[in-house]
């Protein structure tokens, strides 16, 4: 395997959790819910996936545990913001703070343990295609899932009746409610899906990216995923493009550190965060474009009148 392939492979691994978390959040935001707790759901997914893998010996059980943990955690957010109409921004922050705390406590006994890596699955025939084969068809299950999920979201949002209803809820919950769509139920499901995706992203971190448990190992990826949704102007395939762009940035800084070019490592490490800010500026300085793309009911609470 050449150096180019190795670098591209590491970009894919770095990008997958971003793509997954952002795709899930995209669905939640399309339904009008701004869940700032992605970081918290992701870290819960990471710790539960790692713990379940250690206890059961199978990383696939770990993946399921990660998804379950993310989904369960998002339900907490749903209950507060949808049932009790609490402030979405503050509740999202609470979810992140709680997630970082709980994961630190749960993970304490797993610190420093040797992890079990999720093994790649080679797709017959395709994996033997030169260059593309080892890159795209000799990957772990979570990578395949990430692509399938994005494709599925695109199909669901723009090709199905339920997807149309979900977008309607996000753009005008009053009208959707008047037409008989159950706004709260739709949003619960969207939030739940977002949580499951964030949990899966966390599982990828602790089972594929660095197969071990380190406190705060999500390192702001949940927040970058939130920025990615804005970057993608709420369109699924653009999430993939953005995710891979950010994956490339974070990998390039690692390689730059390894080559020891004269820049201090801290400056290189801050590159993904600075890049996020730059991208956000570029994408949002056009006020009108932002207004057109943003789901109109995003972040607004809804109380059905009875």
């Amino acid at each position: 395997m050449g150096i180019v392939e190795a670098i591209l492979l590491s970009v894919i691994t770095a990008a997958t959790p971003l793509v997954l978390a952002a795709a899930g959040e995209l669905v939640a935001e399309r339904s009008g819910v701004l869940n700032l707790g992605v970081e918290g759901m992701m870290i819960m997914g990471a710790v539960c996936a790692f713990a379940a893998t250690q206890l059961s010996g199978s990383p696939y059980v770990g993946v399921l545990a990660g998804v379950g943990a993310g989904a369960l955690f998002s339900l907490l957010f749903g209950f507060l913001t949808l049932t009790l109409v609490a402030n979405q921004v503050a509740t999202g922050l609470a979810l992140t703070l709680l997630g970082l705390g709980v994961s630190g406590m749960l993970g304490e006994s797993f610190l420093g343990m040797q992890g079990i890596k999720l093994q790649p699955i080679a797709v017959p025939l395709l994996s033997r295609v030169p260059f593309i084969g080892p890159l795209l068809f000799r990957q772990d299950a979570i990578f395949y899932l990430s692509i399938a999920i994005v494709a599925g979201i695109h199909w669901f949002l723009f090709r199905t009746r339920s997807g149309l209803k979900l977008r309607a809820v996000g753009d005008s919950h009053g009208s959707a409610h008047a037409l008989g769509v159950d706004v709260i139920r739709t949003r619960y499901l969207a939030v739940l899906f977002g949580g499951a995706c964030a949990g899966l992203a966390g599982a990828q971190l602790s089972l594929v990216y660095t197969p071990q448990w380190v406190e705060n190992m999500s390192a702001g990826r949940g927040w970058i995923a939130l920025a990615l949704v804005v970057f993608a102007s709420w369109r699924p395939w653009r999430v993939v493009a953005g995710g891979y762009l950010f994956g490339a940035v974070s990998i390039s800084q690692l390689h730059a550190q390894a080559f020891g070019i004269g820049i201090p490592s801290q400056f290189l490490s801050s590159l993904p965060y600075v890049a996020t800010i730059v991208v956000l500026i570029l994408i949002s300085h056009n006020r009108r474009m932002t207004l057109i793309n943003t789901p109109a009911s995003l972040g607004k609470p809804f109380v059905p009148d009875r």
Partner: protein
Amino acid sequence: MRIELEKRPKVSALYSILSPFIAFALTIVFGGIMFALLGKNPVAALYSFFVEPLSEVWSLHELAIKAAPLILIGVGLSVCFRSNNWNIGAEGQFIMGAIAGSIFPVVFYEWQSPLMLPLMLLLGMVGGALFAAIPAFLKAHMNTNEILTSLMLVYVAQLFLDWLVRGPWRNPQGMNFPETRSFGVDAILPEMLASGRTHWGFAFAILAALAVWFMMRYTLRGFEITVLGQSERAGRFAGFSSRKMIWFSMLFSGALAGLAGISEVSGAIQQLRPVISPGYGFTAIIVAFLGRLNPLGIIAAGLVLALTYLGGEAAQLSIGVSDKVTRVFQGLLLFFVLSCDTLIHYRIRLVRERFAALKTDEAH
């Protein structure tokens, strides 16, 4: 069973006062359950978490030291949140304030003057405000979401501090430890009371809270903050500029976070290290909400959250649970605060599912 909300005709004054207490009580109950699940005696654990740290003079001083930055930052954030500007990067502004304020005692360490300390505090506020100016500028003039930019800048500030104390600012006589020179006598914020370590940072915090309380209650600026926060449109009709408010609230909260940073470094740590805050900037968000964004409430809330830091340390020593419990308690507390705030605006009713009712009717 289903939960239904019914909008109150008027904001409930009773629950406005009660809700933080209900939230705190619920946190204690859930904390007790958590300790029981960890196999500890919940009563003993809660005692060592919440009561033990209050039983001795030295630990009361520790409480004040930890509460000082929380109150300072929380008061600044309350102005932001009230005007609907979501500065969640106070942790970064805290760090940059600490760095800016440390320029003199670290770089010009030989300079001795009574002016040293005022200059440091001023630079600390400037540093924090300038760092908050970045998300403020981006929101006011580039339409960029301040939540994400201010948060991303926290990581940048942490890495910048790390570089400074390992690189150019490392103590040349420090055996290669990643820390700066210890501050000289002139650069140390003095203790307030004879009985212990509490430094003047605590006084700054109380003063800031009182000043903001006065501003919110008696000045036009306070009214402007409230109006713009509740309805930007109404504010525009009154001639208030939401753009100016972005600048004001962000710079103000940044300056207070910076002041908290330099006070903590100068009063408690007395040098720069790679990590100078156990997440004060984030915990202050909880403080602001637990205090219901009211400066006087924030003083009380700051003391409560400071207690969770001490309680975590005490519980680790006396009953052997992880000090991570602190973070869990803080997260739980914010959750319950936010859910209890629902009671202020809504009446909560438990309704039996309609379908279930229909079915029982048919059975008769």
